[in-house]
């Protein structure tokens, strides 16, 4: 005992030398499972049927039991056939319910799940009661046991996994069109029913690959979570598929690794925890669609809006006073803008830092030269839009302000040029105020009258 512990590497390193062939089997099995589930789960996810995997993996149980009852063997190929058949019947039942009854999709999934699973449990208990000694191990399909994977299982799983990847590669275009827009697919003459049917069959196969390793419930996770995580990173389907397979495979490997380190630890749940961690990371930190990035964009836009509003209001005061550097007090600004004192203070300090405003005396602020230019730009957009709404869309002058209030923060320079061209150098807005910077821009942009 002692000599082995001295010679051997620490367990966390030893794993990578694959001390026994069994370790390698488990690792490969988990990776195959993760990859195929991630790949097919993406299509279920895009078709807004994320819980299809959950329903189908439960629907496999009666098939497993029936295969055993009929043949009396636990040959994985036979059991797998039973599982595939019964999953497949479940998939058809879901289609049938959605198509021919008034029940909704979520109900169809839930009913197939619970009734099929109930049937499976009923058969399982029946087998147990009837005392067939060989039944022990059937219930590992409920929770899965990756450690029980042997070489023979691996060939079946590996073959199926390769087959799935191959079919998806061949029929990528068809799957893509049907997943995104079945009506369009129908219109361009694709055999939509056939494609949907084969997609469902592939998902069934992917579910059955996973059952033995991670069990019924956790298989559902391997179908949903990699796809949901991948979706945060890209808007491109093929990239999403690559990412989902990567996430699936990676978490498969992590699950195998953890369960190697601690014998008591089950592989399946750790796979799920790994893939969910990847999901949480993606949900929070993905650059475009992630929650933090979106919250940041949202905040920046709110700040920009607040700044532009204050600039425009200050400009309006200055305009009325006749001097563009007329100082304005905070209370005056507050009368015209719905914001709290704290918000106003923050916004003004941001504007001061950006060099757009400066403090004259305590609590009195005026526009700097740069601030004047910026304020003129926003005011110009606001008034141009009001004018455009009134002259081109014939909206009453007292209805245009609110709309302009929102759009002034969004209009791009390009749109501004177009507006100037459309309006052909009008100088005053519907409320009789001058459009700042309008005439010069018009003089450059369009021929004089």
């Amino acid at each position: 005992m002692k000599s082995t512990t001295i010679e051997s590497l620490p367990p966390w390193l030893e794993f990578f030398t694959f001390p026994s062939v069994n370790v390698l089997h488990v690792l490969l099995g988990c990776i195959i499972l993760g990859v195929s589930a991630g790949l097919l789960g993406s299509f279920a996810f895009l078709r807004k049927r994320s819980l299809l995997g959950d329903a189908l993996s439960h629907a496999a149980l009666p098939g497993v039991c029936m295969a055993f009852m009929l043949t009396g063997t636990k040959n994985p190929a036979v059991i797998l056939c039973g599982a595939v058949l019964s999953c497949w019947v479940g998939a058809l039942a879901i289609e049938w319910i959605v198509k021919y009854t008034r029940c909704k999709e979520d109900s169809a999934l839930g009913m197939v799940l619970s009734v099929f699973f109930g049937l499976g449990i009923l058969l399982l208990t029946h087998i147990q009661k009837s005392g067939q000694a060989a039944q022990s191990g059937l219930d590992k399909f409920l929770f899965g046991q990756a450690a029980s994977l042997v070489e023979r299982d691996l060939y079946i799983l590996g073959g199926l996994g390769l087959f799935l990847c191959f079919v998806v590669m061949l029929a990528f275009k068809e799957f893509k069109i049907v997943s995104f827009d079945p009506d369009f697919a129908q219109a361009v003459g694709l055999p939509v029913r056939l494609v949907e049917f084969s997609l469902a069959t592939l998902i069934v196969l992917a579910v059955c690959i996973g059952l033995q390793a991670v069990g019924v419930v956790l298989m559902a996770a391997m179908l949903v979570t990699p796809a949901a995580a991948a979706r945060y990173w890209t808007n491109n389907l093929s990239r999403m598929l690559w990412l989902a397979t990567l996430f699936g495979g990676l978490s498969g490997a992590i699950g195998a690794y953890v369960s190697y380190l601690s014998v008591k630890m089950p592989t399946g749940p750790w796979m799920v925890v790994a893939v969910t961690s990847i999901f949480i990371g993606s949900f929070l930190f993905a650059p475009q669609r992630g929650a933090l990035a979106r919250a940041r964009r949202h905040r920046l836009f709110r700040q920009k809006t607040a700044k532009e509003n204050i600039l425009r209001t200050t400009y309006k005061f200055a305009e009325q006073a006749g001097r563009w550097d007329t100082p304005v007090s905070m209370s005056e600004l507050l009368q015209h803008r719905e914001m709290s004192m704290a918000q106003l203070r923050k916004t003004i300090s941001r504007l001061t830092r950006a060099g757009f405003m400066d403090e004259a005396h305590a609590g009195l602020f005026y526009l700097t030269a740069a601030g004047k230019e910026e304020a003129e730009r926003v005011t110009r957009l606001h008034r141009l839009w009001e004018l455009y709404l009134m002259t081109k869309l014939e909206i009453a002058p007292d209805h245009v302000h609110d709309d302009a209030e929102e759009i002034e923060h969004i209009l791009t320079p390009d749109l501004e040029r177009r507006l100037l061209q459309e309006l052909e150098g009008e100088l005053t807005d519907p409320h009789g105020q001058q459009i700042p910077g309008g005439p010069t821009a018009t003089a450059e942009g369009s021929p004089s009258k």
Partner: protein
Amino acid sequence: MMTMDTVWILLIGSLVATSCALVGCFLVLRRLSMLGDAISHAVLPGIVLAFLLTGSRNIGFMLIGAMAMGMLTAFLTDVLSRFGKLQSDAAMGVTFTWLFAIGVILVSKFTGMVDLDVDCVLYGEIVLAPLDVIEWEGRGFGPRAVWLTGIVCVANILFVLLGYKQLKVCAFDAGLAASIGISVGLWHYLLMGFVSLTTVASFESVGAILVVAMLIVPPNTAYLLTDRLSHMLLIAVGVGILSAVGGFLLATWLDGAIAAAMAVVSGVFYTLAALFGPRHGVLAKHRAHRQLDLPFSEEAELES
């Protein structure tokens, strides 16, 4: 033949069926059918944690832990779909499988200390225990489950009676509900709370799979048979109780798990309603189509 145990089993089954059918109708109408499944799996870590923290198998603590997890599932699903822009079914899938995985890990980690079997928690004592009525519900044990499911059943009935109007408006038209001053969020979470309570309280006696089935199969059966919410609730309760009785008979005949058999029987009832329902059944619709076609085909025959 009718022993006391049979009575207890039928009573528990009927109480569970009634509770589930009542809240289930609203789940079905709000297209949240999978929520029962989600909650019934997600409560596992709550039960284990309650056991680890208090060290007792006191049903009260477990109920609290499980309820907390049930609400957490509803809440996380909400957060993910709102702030993560995720489809709500995917959000649900991610959440409950994650919680379930954590639960299984906890069970494996403390397997020596916890006298909790995952099978036992999720499937009642059905999978493992040989189906002996006395062992399934021992004499001193049975009444407690009856009490528990009975109290939950009464709570559910009161909830649906008192909140009938609000639940109805929220289920059919959330926008209208908001505009007439009903807090949609509050009633959503109240409903989630009662679903969690029902799911959790029914575990011990019947197991998760029956709860999931009873939550949605009888309400969907009723949905095929009527267009009125009040009728739907009553029919769902009736179908639920019939399924419980039928399941018991089936299980006795097949010598299998009672709860599973009840789920299967409810599926049979649904299939019957889907095929032979008077108005929304497949055959009735088919006949209606035929009648509509008839004048045209007669005309076509006349012309030819």
